[in-house]
């Protein structure tokens, strides 16, 4: 077997759906049906999961460290809010796409700034862009509502048929559908040759360029796509909560997002989804113990994760599931192990 076909074979095997993945989505759906009183928090988790998946695309697959991912979330949120408030695009699904595209345009424009320089410069530039947008949103308070945020947003029924109800049932299944569709697309992208070339860039940009991968163009493409995802997440936030306030741009949001992804693990797409569930649960737990100071415990979790080492932690977390799956499926079937970060 030649090297090329070997790589192709390996990539195809990786891309195949595992039983574990199907089980994962069935469990998510079952949760939606089993806990009808918890729609609001579950919708919140789905939104966060989508947002984290967006960061995973650039951090886990392309290795871009961003502290300002909230910029795209915020643009999506305000875009969806303004579209609904002024009745420009009334239908939520269409508005969702338009909001995502707005964030995508910003992502494309700023990607040229981000691909320059190394980690620290990227960190600063992404953070700077988010802060800039926050300042802008505050400045043009006649459009954005300033610190009060956008208020009085009335959402039309989804596809003109399913109205948003006050228990958040429609919102939950709407978010779940959006998340699942976007997940399918992301999964397709990261297992395509394009996705493989991104991993090559992440591991060694110089070598990737040497074998003929157009590094900058690939980074621009994935950054733009991630911005689209983040914009959709932001738009879902506005549509399901009917508010958009200045804190959508805040640095804490970007930092929390980083934590979500770190808890779940980067580079296998499920990291953001699992991380979102654990993060929200931790947050609930800490805020019931110490309502005002939960941030301390979140910080402690971050510090401990880094000190213990993310690799080791994920091996522990996945140890039991892998043991069970190995018993059932026999062979080397395991839950995807997160890729090593350089």
């Amino acid at each position: 077997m030649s090297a090329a076909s070997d790589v192709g074979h390996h990539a195809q095997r990786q891309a195949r759906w595992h039983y574990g993945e199907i089980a994962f989505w069935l469990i998510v759906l079952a949760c939606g049906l089993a806990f009808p009183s918890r729609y609001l928090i579950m919708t919140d988790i789905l939104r966060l999961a989508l947002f984290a998946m967006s960061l995973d695309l650039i951090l886990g697959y392309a290795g871009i460290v961003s502290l300002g991912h909230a910029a795209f979330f915020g643009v999506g949120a305000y875009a969806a809010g303004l579209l609904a408030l002024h009745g420009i695009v009334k239908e939520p699904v269409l508005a969702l796409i338009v909001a995502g595209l707005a964030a995508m345009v910003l992502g494309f424009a700023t990607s040229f700034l981000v691909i320059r320089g190394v980690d620290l410069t990227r960190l600063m530039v992404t953070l700077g862009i988010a802060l800039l947008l926050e300042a802008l949103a505050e400045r043009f308070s006649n459009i954005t509502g300033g610190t009060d945020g956008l208020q009085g947003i009335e959402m039309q029924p989804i596809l003109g048929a399913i109205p948003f109800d006050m228990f958040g049932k429609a919102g939950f299944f709407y978010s779940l559908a959006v998340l699942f569709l976007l997940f399918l697309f992301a999964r397709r992208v990261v297992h395509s040759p394009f996705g493989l070339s991104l991993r090559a860039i992440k591991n060694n940009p110089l070598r990737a360029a040497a074998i003929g991968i157009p590094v900058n163009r690939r980074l621009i493409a994935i950054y733009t796509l991630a911005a689209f995802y983040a914009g959709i997440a932001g738009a879902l936030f506005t549509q399901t909560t009917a508010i958009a306030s200045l804190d959508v741009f805040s640095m804490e949001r970007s930092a929390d997002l980083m934590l979500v992804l770190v808890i779940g693990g980067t580079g296998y797409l499920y990291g953001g989804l699992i991380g979102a569930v654990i993060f929200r649960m931790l947050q609930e737990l800490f805020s019931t113990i110490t309502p005002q100071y939960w941030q301390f415990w979140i910080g402690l979790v971050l510090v401990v994760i880094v000190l213990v080492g993310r690799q080791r932690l994920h091996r522990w977390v996945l140890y039991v599931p892998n043991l069970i799956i190995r018993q059932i499926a026999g062979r080397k079937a395991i839950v995807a192990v997160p890729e090593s970060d350089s």
Partner: protein
Amino acid sequence: MTAILTNLFDGVAYGMLLFVLACGLAVTLGLMNFVNLAHGAFAMAGGYVCMVLVNRMGWPFFAALPLAFVSSAAIGIALERTLYRHLYTRSHLDQVLFTIGLTFMSVAAVDYIQGSSRVFINLPAALQGQFDLFGVGIGRYRLMIIVICGLLTIALQMVLAKTRFGSRLRAAVDDPRAASGLGINVPQVFAFTFAFGCGLAGLGGALSAEILGLDPYFPLKFMIYFLIVVTVGGSSSITGPFLASLLLGIGDVAGKYYVPKMGPFVIYTMMIVILIWRPNGLFGRTAAR
């Protein structure tokens, strides 16, 4: 005309303060290539120590300042020896996560101990108010800041340029491997410099309570400013961050005065433009290795 001069004066005071706050970070980034986002937490610690000593225990302000320095330096060296040390060889992502975690913890801890409202340090009467110099209004407190920070800057420059420790430090910044090959104990040099940088941040925190405002969110609010100073100034010399802080200070004060609604906008735009134009900073050679 006098308004311009007063603004310039305020801007210089502000810039000097930023320099004292941020120059420790320049060393951390330049020497060990370590992204320490928790730097502001050390400054906050110094500020709160000073506040407790002056307001609660009745110490004179000038006696409390050195203690702010010492306590921040002590916290700095304790953390360096126990935690930071393990992270020098890790990826930038790990360092960012770790230091953000520390920042969150410090914010919540101070909030828990001292409450979330802004605190003020009782200043001696000699430092309050302002006087006129050829029609230019000069705040006494700001004048003191310029004097203290100016002296500190000169002292730092002298230490770096003239002493044996300074040459060791410069050697370690330029090429840590070659420096350790020459028998310089690089980790020790670094630990000492780290502690000193934290101490300076603590002193800066104590001085800045009056001007920047001191509350538990200080490390988050000013993190971006410290990072701007270091990334724009570069970390290969002390003059780079110094000029960058002055630029930032004057720019920020002028921005807030002349285009009040665009305040932060000016600073962030300036930073992004400079970073795009020169990714290694205005004066830097090896700010980001």
